[in-house]
């Protein structure tokens, strides 16, 4: 599903984000990418959605080599990967319903289909009653659930969650992780980038630990090892 081969990312003049990373994530896996700040977690996430290009190595997503993806192909890739961000990245001037439907509109989905799918997805994340509210009228946990709903509307094969619990309290964080596990149970590959020790240890899923831009460990049923 996701294959990185000897991937390095260097920022000018000589800041190394990632160094010679090789890893493979299989379809249906739930993988946590952990590490301290500056370890390369966010760089890895940005490479997976083509927000950055690798300096060396190759990246494949679902058999598609996106190493040198063209600018006009980026939207197509992003419609196939659901992305959840720590800072939500919701459109503040659009309602909950519009934020979710926007992801389908950009793909040219028919209006009827949008009107069918969006309420379903909002029901999955428990926000069917709040479709006409604006993001500022929601709590942090609710905003993150809108983001998850938006990332699910394309029925993506991969869901990339970059620090999804970073801005949430323990209770909301647990809800979000439960939601991600449910999504994974339906067959979606989930890549969780986090530094939340409790979350990773509770999951008991595969954990890839990054340190100084390299893979420090890769455990099938791992724990958060960084002290």
């Amino acid at each position, binding site marked *: 599903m996701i294959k990185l081969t000897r991937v390095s990312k260097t920022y000018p003049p000589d800041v190394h984000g990632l160094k010679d990373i090789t890893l493979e994530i299989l379809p249906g896996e739930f993988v946590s990418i952990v590490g301290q700040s500056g370890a390369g977690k966010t760089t890895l996430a940005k490479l997976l*959605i083509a927000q950055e290009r690798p300096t060396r190595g190759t990246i494949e997503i679902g058999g598609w080599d996106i190493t040198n993806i063209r600018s006009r192909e980026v*939207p*197509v890739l992003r419609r196939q990967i659901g992305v959840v961000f720590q800072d939500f990245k919701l459109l503040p*001037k659009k309602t909950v319903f519009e934020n979710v439907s*926007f*992801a389908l*509109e*950009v793909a*040219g989905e028919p209006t009827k289909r949008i009107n069918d799918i969006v309420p379903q997805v909002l029901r999955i994340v428990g926000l069917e009653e709040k479709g006409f509210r604006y993001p500022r009228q929601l709590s942090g946990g609710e905003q993150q659930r809108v983001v998850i709903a*938006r990332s699910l509307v394309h029925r993506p094969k991969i869901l990339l969650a970059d620090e999804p619990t970073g801005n949430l309290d323990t209770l909301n964080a647990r809800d979000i992780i439960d939601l991600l596990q449910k999504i994974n149970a339906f067959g979606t590959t989930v890549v969780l980038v986090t530094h939340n020790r409790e979350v990773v240890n509770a999951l008991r899923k595969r954990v890839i630990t990054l340190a100084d831009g390299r893979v420090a460990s890769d455990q099938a049923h791992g724990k958060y090892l960084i002290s």
Partner: protein
Amino acid sequence: MFTTIVRVLKAAFQNIIRNAWLGAATVLVLILALASVNVLVGVNALLTRAVTILEDKVDVTVFFKPTANEALVKQARFFLGDLSQINTVELLPPDKALELFKERHKNDKEILDALAELDANPLGATIRVTAKNTSDYPFIIETLKNPQFADAIESKSYDDHKASIERVQSLADSARLVGSVLILVFVLIGILIVYNTVRVAIYTQREEIGIMRLVGASSTFVRTPFVFQGFALAAIALLVTAGIVAVGVAWIEPGLRPLYDGGDPGLREAFYGNGGQLAILEGGGLMLLVGLTSWAAVGKYLKN
């Protein structure tokens, strides 16, 4: 395709409504830019009209000798009338010239008494000529040096007015040049103001543009609503400015008439007469500028 167009228009409309304050501020600056250009257009029209009135007051009078043959005088009139530089030619026969002379000096008893002493009309025919341009007078005077007419001509008023005519001509040339340069400068300043206003308006929405990209929107899908939004704001600014100008001209013009001898100061012709042309030039220019600037400004935030 139709669905996409509808979505783009809907997004543009929502952007205008939901960013009403930003839109209002943008429209206000666009109005100021348009108004400053129109003020200069108005000032230029007033200046041009003043110069035209001044130019209209300039003429050359050719005084023929009393002995000049009537046929020769008429021939001179036709000759002058055929010149492309001539605006009007007016022939005063000797009797009419005498009548006007008496009228002009009706309070001067000595002159009237002297005239009464004479047996015959001492005045010859007179031709009054106005040129299309003040710069044409030297040429017209030169043509009258034609030996066919020169011997019959007593005098020409041009020599007395030469310095005044040259001053009027110089003033007219300077006024037109300064007016054109000022309009050009204000148009350039207006372009800079509009360009930066649109850039600032889009800068405030840069994060939203980035988010749209992250959820899979193509560059065109993100850009087009901003361009349509710009068109709509430009159209609103154009309409409001047109209203302000129309009301402004109607309000100011009567007050300016006394300065133009009760005549037309030229504002109505400049704005009402050329309204369509001005709207196309200013509106088209503004739309083009806003559209291109929006397209380019959004592009800056589409790189990720």
